[in-house]
């Protein structure tokens, strides 16, 4: 189908976009890469009166590292993040996640900020933001504020961004020294929406015991799901197969995924447990205690 009619304004500066948002409010929608929005327009699931195109705001397209924190401008293309050595060196999980994200034809246009703001719990970047404890900077005409990943994802396709606000930047703090990272996903065909997935960060203490493990499950709940019970279970434990299996079981027991034509709830739960165990095992194999000199890989 074709989109319903709308007015179109191309913003030439972030402040102008905020000004337009403040005036048009609920009636308007920001257009960055459009790789989620345009299908919704074509299906007429979304019928905004005004589209504010922020896709050419070069000011918001950047990847840099400041004091260990990776800063990604909202209109940075997903393909740029995919190619970023800066990102893959410090956050290998991100590179793995992007590899699962749709197809090259989508990543060349789709933006990092667009995917995060779309807040789909079946999408890779929101899950990566959750497990890496990213902080999102949003702005309105009256100022800026920073939102933690936990507070940012409100429910299915809903973020904490208000109608007059715009996402400016995603800041990803440095992973703890020596922490193992993993991202695994399963879909029937590569690039389809995930049936399940898990992202894991395992930092170790000097004795090689888990200290501050983070687990986020994909497609498990209306938001990227931090499996806190499972995380706590691993605290102070050696990351052996038995402990990791118990944690994966605990993580899956916390969730009640919705059934649909692609998979029933119990199947998705079992899948979550398997994928969580895979991710934990992979991350544990990569993890080294912080005071040990790391040798190769």
């Amino acid at each position, binding site marked *: 189908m074709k989109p319903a009619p709308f007015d179109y304004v191309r913003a030439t500066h972030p402040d102008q976009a905020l000004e337009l948002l403040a005036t048009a409010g609920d009636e308007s929608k920001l*257009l960055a890469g459009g790789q989620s929005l345009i299908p919704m327009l074509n299906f007429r699931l979304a019928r905004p009166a005004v589209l504010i195109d922020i896709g050419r705001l070069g000011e918001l397209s950047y990847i840099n590292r400041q004091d260990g924190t990776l800063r990604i401008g909202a209109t940075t293309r997903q393909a740029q993040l995919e190619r970023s050595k800066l990102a893959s060196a410090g956050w290998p999980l991100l590179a793995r996640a992007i590899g699962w994200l749709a197809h090259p034809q989508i990543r060349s246009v789709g933006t990092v900020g667009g995917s995060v703001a779309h807040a789909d719990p079946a999408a890779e970047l929101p899950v990566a933001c959750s497990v890496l404890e990213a902080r999102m900077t949003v702005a309105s005409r009256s100022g800026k504020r920073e939102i933690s990943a936990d507070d940012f994802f409100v429910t299915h396709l809903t973020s904490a961004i208000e109608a007059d606000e715009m996402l400016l930047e995603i800041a990803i703090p440095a992973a703890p020294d020596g922490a193992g990272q993993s991202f695994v996903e399963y879909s029937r065909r590569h*690039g389809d929406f995930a049936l399940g997935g898990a992202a894991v960060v395992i930092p170790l203490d000097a004795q090689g015991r888990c200290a501050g493990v983070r687990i986020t499950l994909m497609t498990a709940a209306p938001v990227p799901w931090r499996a806190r019970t499972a995380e706590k279970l691993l605290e102070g434990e050696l990351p052996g197969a038995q402990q990791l299996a118990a944690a994966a079981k605990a993580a899956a027991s916390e969730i009640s995924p919705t059934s649909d034509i692609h998979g029933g709830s119990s199947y998705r739960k079992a899948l979550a447990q398997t994928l969580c165990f895979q991710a934990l095992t992979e991350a544990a194999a990569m993890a080294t205690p912080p005071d040990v000199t790391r040798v190769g890989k």
Partner: protein
Amino acid sequence: MTLSTITIDINDQAYRAEVEPRRLLSDFIREDAGLTGTHVGCEHGVCGACTVQLDGAPVRSCLMLAIQAEGRSVRTVEGLSDSPEFHPLQKAFLDAHGLQCGYCTPGFLMSLEPYMRDADEISEQGIREAIAGNICRCTGYQSIVDAVQIAANEMRPQEDAER
């Protein structure tokens, strides 16, 4: 709702038209520019038939508004070869039976050409990743993978062979 006059460079030629903001790039290419080599399948970004290149990168033209592409450079299947001869990739599709009905073919070609240009090494895995976003219901993909490998051999610099 207002009409805007936009110009898009397609295959090194400027096309100018008065369009509604909701005009999809795929419709601009087919209807305003009259370049019907670009095919439209699902119109929601799943099938890949409408893939064209925007500033050299493969994109889905049904997932982009024409006005978003204003002033930018688009390449369609008609621009693949600048002579009456086929591009080596097109020739290889023909030779290896990389198509039957041909509906999806322009999308495959426009996805594969940048992959072949940018890849350090052409591999079966790489080819399959490059076309993961294109659906073909005729070939089962193997003959498409074969075609790319034939084309890659054909396009490899001939220096060594001539020496």
